[in-house]
């Protein structure tokens, strides 16, 4: 394979990345024998595969992802959750509760507007999303606040081997849960919550600039010494 761009450079849609045999990865498309980018993103070249990580875009649900969603609707046997994807997600009663409850009135269990940490059980052929929140870490999130960021920036909030999230947790003593869909839940002292929210928004805005962890650390130190 012959590469036409440098590793980790910014590519725009339609830009030729490489020539040669084609292996499908996200963010790339084929035109004759050329591999072209289909999104605005950063290109990663590894051995014989090309991948473009988008800089912008909506969350596309994948099986096995942990997400944070808000209840927006109640059906006879399920809830509709908004998880920032193009489609609403569905949480069935059977997959929602750890122990048997009276399910005659679902409104008594999760109300509209409540926030739920759930796992994507399946994404169907026609893009209908099934969730489950049966096991331990999943379930209703009480108190705290939700910060929404772009889903493409979630890996930066977590950092390499969790370095960023560890830093945030250690310095603020807050409980933080990150959904793959870009919803982040923070619970702690009210002032601390505010500081973490600010830091996360900073990550969202500056995700593509190197040296992010150091900058966030500096910012947190300044904020905490106030």
């Amino acid at each position, binding site marked *: 394979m012959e590469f036409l761009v440098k590793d980790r450079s910014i590519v725009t*849609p339609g*830009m030729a990345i490489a020539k040669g045999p084609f292996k499908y990865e996200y963010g790339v498309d084929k035109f004759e024998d050329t591999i*072209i980018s289909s999104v605005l993103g950063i290109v990663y070249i590894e051995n014989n595969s090309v991948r473009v990580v*988008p800089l912008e875009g909506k969350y596309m649900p994948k099986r096995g992802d942990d997400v944070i969603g808000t209840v927006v609707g109640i059906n006879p046997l399920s809830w509709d959750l908004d998880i920032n994807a*193009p489609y609403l997600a569905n949480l069935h009663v059977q997959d929602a509760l750890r122990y048997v409850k009276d399910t005659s009135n679902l409104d008594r269990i999760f109300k509209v507007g409540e926030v739920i940490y759930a796992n994507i059980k399946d994404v169907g052929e026609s893009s209908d999303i099934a969730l489950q929140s049966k096991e331990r870490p999943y379930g209703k999130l009480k108190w705290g606040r939700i910060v929404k960021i772009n889903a493409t920036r979630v890996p930066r909030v977590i950092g390499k081997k969790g370095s960023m999230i560890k830093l945030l947790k250690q310095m603020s003593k807050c409980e933080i849960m990150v959904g793959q869909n870009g919803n982040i839940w923070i619970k702690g002292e009210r002032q601390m919550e505010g500081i973490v929210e600010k830091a996360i928004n900073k990550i969202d805005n*500056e995700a*593509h600039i190197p040296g992010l962890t150091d900058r966030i650390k500096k910012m947190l130190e300044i904020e905490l010494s106030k």
Partner: protein
Amino acid sequence: MDKDIKFFENGKRIDGRDVDELRNINIEVGVFKRADGSSYIEWGGNKIYCAVYGPREAYPRFLQKSDRAILKCRYNMASFAVEDRKRPGPSRRGVEIGKVTQGALEPALLLENFPKCMVEVNIEVVQADAGTRCAGIAAASVALANAGIPMKELVPSCAAGKVDDRIVLDLSKEEDNYGQADLPLAFLPRKNEFSLLQMDGDLSEEQLEEALELGKKGCLEVYEIQKEALKKKYVREDDSNE
């Protein structure tokens, strides 16, 4: 149509351009916070905002396609955008331009990734100065890329025309109003196809060929500007922080 205007002086046009020269084009990316993707274009005297929403669930429901997303385009001109006051609200012309914009953009997008969804494109003309549909398409394409919607390529667009029996690129207001023909084009560079081709006025077969060739060249110039605009957004932020 005819008015006594001298279109050429010493081989230059009214505004001092060459026959095959575009007006100044400046594109900004990501100007709106609420939209998923947005752009602002200044093309000569044209000032156009574009906002893209989606992919999100298609509404009304009966428009949903089970195998792909639908593209909805809206073109609107502000009442203060032209010399005389334009009556606000949807018009015959606005609906038509919305329709041709959709036709120009759709072949470049990978809409089959989002079944049952819709992508909305809103083009808002704040100041008009000939060639708004082309500027609108160029801006919309950049806004779609900014929204992270997968596509085969960006869609550049520009107009060619005939003034004083000569083929010129990117008509200005006077040339558009008192010239002989206007030919708005949108071009798919990779496929080497036109996705928009309209004509106002008349051209002979040879003149049409010549205008298409010139328009293609102009489109490729616009394409470079679009790519630069998208990259600039991220690179500039890079510099300011170091």
